[in-house]
């Protein structure tokens, strides 16, 4: 995936996320995994499907992105471009992190109802589909129906006063 996609600021419109969700849901159904979280490389969650009620999404996203960044650096020191898949095995639950389009990380949580082989197989398929979605996102420059409100800045500063004191 090219440098532009990796570095450009991505904006996720509703239809993009719906497309992504469809791919993630299909992956869950086929692999038997519990949930999928898509996280951008800066640690912001993009979307999630499956059982995520007990998951602290913000913190998990930050940790996943940090973990991936750390192992990417390790890979570089070892002469690899990067490790595109990371797996962590627990006693009951396991997690696989898959790099998507050089821009996002798909965190898949699964348990012993499935196998890592199944997860890996379908993650590979999902990754290819998501690459296509991201390519479309990157090529589209703007979405006329969705944009930030004109007074966002002023309204946000008002909200700052609420949080930090005026």
């Amino acid at each position, binding site marked *: 995936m090219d440098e532009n996609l990796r570095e450009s600021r991505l904006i996720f419109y509703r239809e993009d996320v719906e497309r992504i969700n469809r791919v993630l849901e299909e992956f869950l159904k086929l692999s038997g995994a519990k949930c999928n979280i898509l996280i951008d490389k800066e640690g912001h969650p993009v979307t999630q499907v499956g059982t995520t009620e007990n998951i602290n999404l913000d913190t998990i996203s930050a940790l996943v992105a940090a973990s991936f*960044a750390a192992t990417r650096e390790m890979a570089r020191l070892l002469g690899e471009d990067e490790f595109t898949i990371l797996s962590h095995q627990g006693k009951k639950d396991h997690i696989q992190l898959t790099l998507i389009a050089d821009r996002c990380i798909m965190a898949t949580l699964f348990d012993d109802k499935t196998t890592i082989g199944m997860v890996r197989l379908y993650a590979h398929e999902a990754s290819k589909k998501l690459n296509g979605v991201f390519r479309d996102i990157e090529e589209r420059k703007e979405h006329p129906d969705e944009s930030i409100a004109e007074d966002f800045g002023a309204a946000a500063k008002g909200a700052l006063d609420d*949080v930090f004191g005026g």
Partner: protein
Amino acid sequence: MVQINFARKEVNCKIVYYGPGLSGKTTNLEIVHEKAPPDRKGDLTSIATEGDRTLFFDFMPLELGKVGGMNTKFQLYTVPGQVYYNATRKLVLQGADGVVFVADSQREKLEENLESFKNLEDNLREQGLDLKKLPMVMQYNKRDLPSALPVADLDKAMNKYAAPTIEAVAVTGEGVFPTLKKLASMVLDNLNKQYGVGAKPAGPPPKAGAKDGKADSGEIPKEAPPERERVGVAAGAGAGARAQTAGGGVPGEGSTPGRGKIQRESALSSAGTDAPARPAGREATGREAPLRRPEPAAGGGAPAAARGGGRGAAEKSSEIARERGEERERRGPASVGRPGGGGGSKQPQVIVAGDKKKEAAGGGPSAMVILLGIVLAIVAVLGVLWYTGILDEILGTATGGR
């Protein structure tokens, strides 16, 4: 980089606290976590050594609430300040939308401040970012200490980008919120310029070393230097003096934390020791012994003595710092979020490497070792979080579910 998600109706920004070791970056975040309204903050997660030195980062999400129909959130990070953690600093700095540079105002720390600031410039340049364009606030911390340099001197030495400066005594909370508020305001201004109605999404940031004048997504177009703003803190001579800071009172003062809690994972432990290690290597490099993380076992006079025997406000600050350190120690085992609390729960696996062993070897650890340690630490934190989630499920099932 700001993430705008119209599906989740979220705007996510990343703010990084940067600075030399022990300048007060983590303290800033702890104060924000303590004082922020309970419904606006998430957990404070720290990946640190047993000596309470940041190993990878501290992280805390903070919500502004719904703005223009979008839930606006800031993710606050701190970096490890010690020199040999540069590789991890680069990782944390990636995608930053704004930086708070926390400088230690003490005269003897000036060189470290300058080294850290240059390091910040270098690391940003590698990512194609420029401090002329990236929102930044300089926080001059530890204003209460007797050897604190005048702000004018600090500005002259460090503030070549004419960034807004805020004086602070982070350990008491003074200056912490004004700093964050100022930077958040700058980040939002930038965002509004980039993504207002009719504005096109910015292109990719320029590559490192690029000489073109193409607008960067982080650019704040300006013809004149930004207005210098100083939020002062009363001189530290008088014990108990409260700072007069712009921004007024701190909201949520006295309120008990709500849903946010502190999770601290001690990634590296020096086996068989109770007191946090004081690395021998630090003395070898001629650096002053750490001041702001007092060991619970330390005698009352140690922190003050480490600061050259200052009295008055210095003692008061050290006492507050000591109390915070003791509170942190007390909170430590139960703060990881394990159910049932207490030290009887299983501790996550830790790497026995620690400050002692590293320093005994006479030098900093290799990048590989550090990264390996960080990865294992993160895995441990993830494991605890997952474990907590599962147990909640089980308990829910055992009591008859919903």
